[in-house]
């Protein structure tokens, strides 16, 4: 089965990101295909590389990044939501005249059309939010 997963909250504040991560892992283990994970609203904040590993807790942003590398996942951050909240990749930061970017490896920034296309192409769309 082919899935598109939508993540609408940032890491830690709500469990959504944790739940989505566990769901995606379980789906992959069962041999399903994750066509795309789309990060919207505060979900864009899952894609920062500036978070610091806590002494005794999970680092969600890194876990998403590692999972993407391991399974060649397509993790897409919505550009409009990202601009409001300050999540930037090198190209977009340059285009906006900003002096830094903060995206972590394994995520890419693109438009909302990627969400719709994901839902059209996939058998199931699963939403994780507040």
């Amino acid at each position: 089965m082919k899935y598109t997963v939508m993540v609408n909250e940032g890491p830690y504040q709500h469990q959504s990101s944790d739940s989505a991560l566990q769901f995606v892992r379980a789906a992959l283990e069962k041999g399903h295909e994750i066509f795309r994970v789309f990060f919207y609203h505060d979900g864009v904040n899952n894609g920062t590389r500036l978070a610091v590993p806590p002494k005794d807790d999970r680092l969600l942003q890194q876990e998403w990044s590692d999972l993407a590398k391991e399974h060649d996942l397509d993790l897409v951050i919505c550009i409009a939501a990202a601009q409001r909240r300050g999540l930037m990749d090198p190209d977009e930061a340059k285009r906006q005249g900003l002096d830094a970017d903060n995206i972590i490896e394994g995520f890419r920034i693109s438009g909302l059309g990627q969400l719709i296309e994901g839902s059209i192409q996939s058998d199931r769309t699963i939403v994780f939010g507040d």
Partner: protein
Amino acid sequence: MATKKFMYVNRKAPYGTVYALESLEVVLIAAAFEQDVSLAFIDDGVYQIAKGQNTDGIGMKNFSATYNALGDYEINKLYVEKESLEERGLTEDDLMPIVWEDEDDDWAEKPSIRIVSRAEMADILADQDVHYSF
């Protein structure tokens, strides 16, 4: 590409959270994909299309006029739950008169808002392929 039935489920008041605004942004993009698009306004979601919204006092952007533009994108199925209105002391008269122009009927203006009962809403939700929840 296959055509699917997309349902945007709006259950939250506008301005208190960003969901109403960012839901609308998805809807506008979705219009380009030529899918079957519906919007549901349930629970506090009915305030999103309340008429007379004025955000001068809170410094936020008033995006309510955008709902009037949906007709231009051929998005004209806005289901509003009757019980949700009633519980909040509202009637259809409290909603914006959102319309669309029917190309097949000499561009006649027709209402986009369809007031449905909770039971009808349940059936409408059951009849969709993709549910985006905001």
